[in-house]
C-alpha cells in the first residue's frame, strides 16, 4: 500500500470554465402537443393533458396530451389499416422512406439535440455527439435491411409480425425510439409507440419528421401518456408484438400480460453491471472507462457500470485516481457545452436515487463525492462513489439508475467472475486488463449480453444489445434486432 504518492484529492482550482451555453433558439416549442395518429396530430378524446418540465430548471416546457383507451384504439386501428400497404410495399421502397427519415434526422440534429437536453436534462455534449447521431445512424442502418429480409436468418420468406406496440423509457428518449421504430418498419411492421411521460417532446418532433418524409399515414403512431397509457397499449388485443424498454418490474408485468396470447415480446430491462479492473489494466483508460461507465447520462443507463470490481493490489491506486478524476467533473446546465453531468430526469428519480444512496450509508458503506456546487432549482445529484460495499448491500444489488458507483474488491479472476455474475441481472459487463487471453476467458464466463473489454458504454446499430436473465430477452441492433420483428414464412 501507500506506494502511490500522488497528491491528495483537491477541488480543481483554475479549472473554471466560462459558461458556453448552446442556444435554445433552434427549438420552436409549441405550448401544447396532440397525439400523432394516422399521420396527423389530433387532440385526445377527453382533453386530459400533462406537463413536461425541464428537469434542470423545473420550467414547464409544454402541455402534452394524455392518451386514453379510446385514443389507443384509434392509434392501433390506424396502424392495422396501414399494415397491409406497408408490409406489401417492396422492401426497396420501404428502405427509401427510412433513408429519408435518417437524412432529415441528421439535418435537424442540432434542434433535436437541444430539445432532448431540455426535456431530459442530459448534457448537450452527449445529446449532440452520442444520442442524435446514433438515432440517424440507426435509421440509416435498418433502411438497408428493408430489401434484404431473406438474409435475416429466418428462412427465404420471412414475414413481418403486424402492429408493434412499443413503450420506451426516458433515459435516451429519441435513441430508444430509433431502436424500436427503425427495425420494426424495415421489417414491414407498423407501430404505435408511447414515449416516456417525462420526455415526450423529441418523439413528437419525430412525428413531424415522419410527415416531412411523407411516410404513409398510420405506419408510425405516437401516443403520449403515463404508465396507464402504456399498459393499455401493450395489452391491446389488436397488437401482434410488444417491445418494451424499462424496469424489470414492469417487464415482468408485461410478460404476464401477454401470456396466453399470440403476441411476440422483447424486453430490455434493468441491469447492475460489473466493471472489472484487473491489476494489469491500462490504468488511464480504465479510469476514463469507470467514469463514463457510471456517470455517462447521469448514470441513467440500464447498462451502466454501477458495480466496480477492483483487484485488491491496485485498489488504492484506482480509488485515488478515480476520485481525482471525479473532482474534475462539471455538474450543471445541460445546455452548457462544458457540462459533464446534467440534471436528474425527474423529482421521482431523484428521490429514488437519494433513498437508495441513503440505504448505502445506513448499511455501512462509505460515501464520497467531490466538492461540487449544485444548482438551486431543478433536480441534481452529485457524482457519488461508495466504498466498503458488500455484495449484500442494497447499493450492490439494486439498480440505482443515477450517478452512484458501488466499489467492491476481489483477489482472483474466479472471485471476480463469481461476484460479477452474482446478480439476477445480466445486461452488460466491463473487463479491464492488458492480457488478451484473460479478456477472452473472463468475457466467456460473464453471463451478460454485452461485454465491453477495455472500453465501456459503446453502442452501434450493427451491434446487438440486450440481456441475459432478468435483464430481459431479445436483442436490439444488428441482424438479431431485425429478427425480433420477423417470423419464419411458409416454406415453399
Amino acid at each position, binding site marked *: 500500500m501507500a506506494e502511490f504518492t500522488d497528491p491528495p484529492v483537491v477541488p480543481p482550482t483554475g479549472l473554471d470554465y466560462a459558461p458556453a451555453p448552446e442556444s435554445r433558439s433552434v427549438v420552436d416549442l409549441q405550448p401544447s402537443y396532440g397525439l400523432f395518429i394516422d399521420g396527423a396530430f389530433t387532440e385526445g378524446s377527453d382533453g386530459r393533458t400533462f406537463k413536461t418540465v425541464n428537469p434542470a430548471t423545473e420550467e414547464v416546457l409544454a402541455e402534452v396530451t394524455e392518451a386514453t383507451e379510446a385514443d389507443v384504439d384509434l392509434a392501433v386501428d390506424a396502424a392495422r389499416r396501414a399494415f397491409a400497404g406497408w408490409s406489401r410495399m417492396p422492401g426497396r421502397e420501404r428502405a427509401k422512406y427510412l433513408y429519408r427519415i435518417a437524412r432529415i434526422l441528421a439535418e435537424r440534429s442540432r434542434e433535436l439535440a437541444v430539445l432532448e437536453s431540455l426535456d431530459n436534462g442530459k448534457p448537450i455534449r452527449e445529446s449532440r455527439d452520442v444520442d442524435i447521431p446514433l438515432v440517424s445512424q440507426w435509421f440509416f442502418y435498418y433502411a438497408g435491411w428493408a430489401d434484404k429480409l431473406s438474409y435475416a436468418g429466418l428462412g427465404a420468406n420471412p414475414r413481418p409480425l403486424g402492429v408493434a406496440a412499443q413503450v420506451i423509457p426516458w433515459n435516451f428518449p429519441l435513441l430508444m425510439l430509433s431502436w424500436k421504430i427503425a427495425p420494426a418498419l424495415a421489417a414491414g411492421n407498423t407501430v404505435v409507440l408511447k414515449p416516456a411521460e417525462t420526455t415526450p417532446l423529441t418523439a413528437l418532433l419525430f412525428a413531424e419528421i415522419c410527415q416531412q418524409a411523407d411516410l404513409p399515414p398510420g405506419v408510425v403512431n405516437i401516443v403520449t401518456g403515463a404508465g396507464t397509457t402504456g399498459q393499455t397499449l401493450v395489452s391491446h388485443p389488436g397488437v401482434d408484438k410488444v417491445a418494451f424498454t424499462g424496469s424489470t418490474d414492469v417487464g415482468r408485468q408485461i410478460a404476464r400480460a401477454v401470456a*396466453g396470447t399470440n403476441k411476440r415480446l422483447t424486453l430490455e430491462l434493468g441491469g447492475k453491471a460489473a466493471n472489472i479492473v484487473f491489476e494489469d489494466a491500462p490504468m488511464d483508460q480504465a479510469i476514463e472507462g469507470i467514469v463514463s461507465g457510471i456517470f455517462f447520462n447521469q448514470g441513467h443507463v440500464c447498462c451502466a457500470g454501477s458495480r466496480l470490481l477492483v483487484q485488491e493490489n491496485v485498489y488504492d491506486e484506482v480509488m485515488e485516481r478515480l476520485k481525482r478524476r471525479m473532482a474534475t467533473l462539471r455538474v450543471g446546465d445541460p445546455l452548457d457545452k462544458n457540462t459533464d453531468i446534467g440534471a436528474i430526469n425527474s423529482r421521482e428519480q431523484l428521490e429514488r436515487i437519494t433513498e437508495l444512496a441513503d440505504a448505502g450509508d445506513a448499511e455501512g458503506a462509505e460515501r464520497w463525492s467531490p466538492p461540487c456546487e449544485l444548482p438551486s432549482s431543478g433536480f441534481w445529484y452529485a457524482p457519488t462513489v461508495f466504498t466498503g460495499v458488500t455484495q449484500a448491500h442494497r447499493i450492490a444489488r439494486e439498480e440505482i439508475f443515477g450517478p452512484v458507483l458501488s466499489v467492491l474488491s476481489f483477489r482472483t479472476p474466479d472471485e471476480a467472475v463469481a461476484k460479477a455474475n452474482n446478480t439476477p441481472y445480466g445486461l452488460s459487463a466491463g473487463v479491464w486488463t492488458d492480457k488478451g487471453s484473460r479478456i477472452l476467458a473472463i468475457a466467456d464466463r460473464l453471463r451478460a449480453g454485452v461485454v465491453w473489454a477495455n472500453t465501456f458504454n459503446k453502442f452501434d446499430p450493427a*451491434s446487438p444489445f*440486450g440481456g441475459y436473465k432478468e435483464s430481459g430477452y431479445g436483442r436490439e441492433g444488428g441482424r438479431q434486432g431485425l429478427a425480433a420483428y420477423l417470423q419464419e414464412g411458409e416454406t415453399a
Partner: protein
Amino acid sequence: MSRLDVRKTYKLYIGGSFPRSESGHTYEVLDTEGRFLANAAKASRKDGRDAVGAARKAFGGWSARTPYNRGQILYRVAEMIEGRHDQFTSDVVSAEGLSTQQASKVVDAAVDRWVWYAGWADKLAQVTGNANQVAGPYFNLSSPEPTGVVVAVAPQDDSLLGLVSVLAPVIVSGNTAVVVTSYARPLPAVTLSEVLATSDVPGGVVNILTADAADVAPWLAGHLDVNGLDLTGVDDASLATDLEAEAAVNLKRVVRPSRPDWAAEPSLSRMTAFLETKTVWHPVGV
C-alpha cells in the same frame, strides 16, 4: 413351462441416477387398447426441484465442453438409440398404437433427428453469430451462448419423435434440461433415459420426469433457477397460459405450445429459442 419374463421397473432419471419418485407415487400406463403396460413413477414437486438442482449443477461443465465434444456425445446418443431400435419400436407400438412397420419408421426418424441436431453443436455459432461492422475502431463479435436450465414439456402424442425433437435442440448448445414426458405415453422417454445414461452424456444434463405436467410444471415454471420453459407439449390452453405467466417471475424464455409436423425438417428456432447473444467489444489499435 414357458419362462416368465423379467419386467422392468420404470423410474425417473435425475442427475444420472434412476430414482423412484420421492413421493412414492406411481401411475398406471396403458397401451392404446387400454391394456396395462407398467407402473410409471409419478414425479412430484420435490422430484422437480431435485431435477432442477441436478441440471444447474451440470450446466457449468456441459456448457464449457467444446462444441465438437458435445456433438460427439450427442452423436453417440443416436448410435445408442439405433442399437436399441427394436426396443424403441416396441415402446412406440404400445404407446402410440402404430404398426411395427410404422413405429420402426418413427424410430428411424428419431435417430436421424438426433443426428441432425448433433451436427449443429459446432456450427451454431457460425450460423447465428457474427462479426458486427460497427462505425469505429472496435473488434465486435456476437456469439450464441446457452440460456441455462431449460424445462421442456414433451409432446403428449408423439412420445419418441416429439420428445427427441424438443430435447436435442435444448442440449446441443450447452443448456441442461428437465423434461416432463408425455403423461399417458411415458415409456419411450424412460428407455431414452437408459440410452442417455450409457452415452457419455454427463449426469444432470438431461433429467426425465414421468409426470402429469399439470402437477409439476407449475412448480418448475415458477422456479427461480430455471431460465427457459418449452411448453410445446402442454395441450391445455389455460394451463399453458398460467405457466407462461408464472414464468415471468424471472423472465424465463418461453416457447409456446404447438403441434408441429414432427416428421418435417426443423428450422433453427428450437435451438435459438434457448440461446443468448453475447456481444463483445474491444478497441482496435497499436
